[in-house]
């Protein structure tokens, strides 16, 4: 068994106090190894998105240990967590979260700016990433000039451009119709298989989860099912 890339041990995340206390995560143990394509499923309020945010260092756990590539994240300060996101993580959100009035190219360049990359190299990398998601010729379109599926491709390109170790996708197809959803899933599956990119994806659609190599099911803040899936399922 290889070293885990992500390891969660007894992770808890509570909201509110006393009587109104909600245990969104109630003791989650999870190991993700390099090259896995993990799908997290579960009913609304089961804590799957919360777990995703903690894995992405966008949120902090109330208790438990989270090791990223062997490093205890709780020991990192805000700026160090920002650096971890900058160099190792790429995000794809349900709502795309692109900067408005900003071209696709500039959106994809954004993480590269914070990496301190020079303009010429940034543009080259961003164009390459947009080409990888099939958006050649749309570099100068702003989000409002792109369809939902295209916007999500821009978001994927932005996540890819920084060459992360892990891509985190929170309901990436939640706002898309079936045809676009299938296109996005095929793209993610290709990235996983061809480039060996580790992907953690939250979804509530079984059809989408079927593209993953491993399925984890959350209920009431706990992992209730964790199984490898057959090659080429569906």
């Amino acid at each position, binding site marked *: 068994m290889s070293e885990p890339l992500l390891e969660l041990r007894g992770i808890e995340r509570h909201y509110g106090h006393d009587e109104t206390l909600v245990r969104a995560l109630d003791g989650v143990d999870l190991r993700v190894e390099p090259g896995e394509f993990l799908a997290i499923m579960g009913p609304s309020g089961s804590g799957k998105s919360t777990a995703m*945010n903690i894995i*992405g*260092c*966008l*949120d*902090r756990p109330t208790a438990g240990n989270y090791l990223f590539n062997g490093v205890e994240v709780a020991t990192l300060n*805000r*700026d160090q967590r*920002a*650096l971890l*996101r*900058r*160099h190792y*993580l790429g*995000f794809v*959100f349900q709502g795309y*979260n*692109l*900067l*408005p*009035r*900003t071209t696709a190219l*500039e959106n994809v360049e*954004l*993480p590269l*700016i*914070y*990496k*301190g990359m020079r303009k010429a190299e940034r543009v080259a990398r961003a164009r390459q990433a947009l080409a990888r998601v099939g958006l050649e010729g749309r570099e100068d379109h702003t989000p409002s000039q792109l369809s939902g599926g295209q916007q999500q491709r821009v978001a994927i390109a*932005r996540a890819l451009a*920084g060459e992360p170790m892990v891509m985190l996708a929170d309901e990436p197809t939640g706002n898309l119709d079936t045809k676009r959803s299938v296109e996005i899933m095929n793209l993610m599956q290709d990235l996983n298989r061809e480039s060996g990119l580790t992907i953690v994806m939250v979804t509530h659609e079984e059809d989408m989860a079927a593209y993953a190599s491993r399925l984890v099911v959350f209920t009431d803040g706990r992992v209730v099912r964790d199984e490898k899936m057959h090659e080429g399922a569906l």
Partner: protein
Amino acid sequence: MLWETIRLALTAIIRNALRSFLTVLGVVIGVAAVIAMVTVGQGSSEQVSANVESLGTNVLVLRSGARMMGPGSRDTAPSFKLSDAEALEDLSSLSAVAPVVSTSATAVFGNNNRTTSITGTTSPYLEIGGWTIALGRSFTPAEDRSGANLCIIGETVRTTLFGATDPTGEKIRIKSISCEVIGVLKSKGAGSFGQDQDDLVLMPVRTVQRRLMGSQDVSSISLQVARTASVERATSDIEALMRERRRIAIGEDDDFSVFDMAELSSMLNSVNSVLTGLLSSVAAVSLLVGGIGIMNIMLVSVTERTREIGIRLSVGAQAHQVLMQFLVEAVVLSVLGGIIGILFGLGLAYVAAQIMAIPFSPSLNVIALAFGFSAVVGMVFGYFPARRAARLDPIDALHYQ
């Protein structure tokens, strides 16, 4: 990285053109309003002070009629005669006395004419009124007493009738008389109420009395208090002399009044300072409105900006990098607005000063104050919401509604 941050900030300013424009506009309005209003107020205040000086110091004016007269009461008081002015010359507390007879008439030279004010007086009038001769000469003592057809003209009359040519020795016609121009008065410019002080013709008092008025009356007597005497003493000397000459019994009120020009000018000054105060408060309100405008734009955009901050944090920006970007944005917008506002405000004040014929006197303090206030408002409301957002966990910033 700093250069990168400035570039990010400039890109954001251009990308959010409407928001940037409105922010800049808020600063411009605030700064321009304050600068224009206060500059105009100060200019008119200076103008009044200059007028006070041009009125001459220690000048008194003696008029017939009680000071607080009701309608028609003036008619009952007898007018002064030249003999009254001559009597006043003997008072040691006065250094100059000039009887004044005023009327208005049309002065004609060739094809040019101008309706102007005609003042019949004597040469001490020039000293009392602070006039100097620009060209030619004043009346001689003999001419003061004579009824000679001579005149000294103001700059405005000279320009209208003679253009650029030398008028001395020429003869102008006023009503039925033809009088020789012996001098031109040096220009005084506009008066306290914006009136043209140079629009006048001076003639010997008797000439005006006989040839234009057909009467022996004197409208008023201008007096200059001697250096060695106080205004109060001169006033009481004048009052005593006049009561005696006009045979006013003890216990009866004066049927004449002595006006102190310094008193008049201090009254003008206080009216002016009230006006300046009014303008300043209007300006302060504009500044406040501008500030609220900036504040609103900044606060309205908090939702969008908080999401933007969430996005930036999620792709790996550190809080201080995001803050620096927002601070640079706020500074650039505030400074840009401030500079435009200063130029605009000074421009407005300059135009107003030209129209109102007052001095253009910008004050560095006011410029600094207006600029500082708007800049601080712009920066505070641009920076603090951003700081709050940058301190959130990225997920809270992303989900901010």
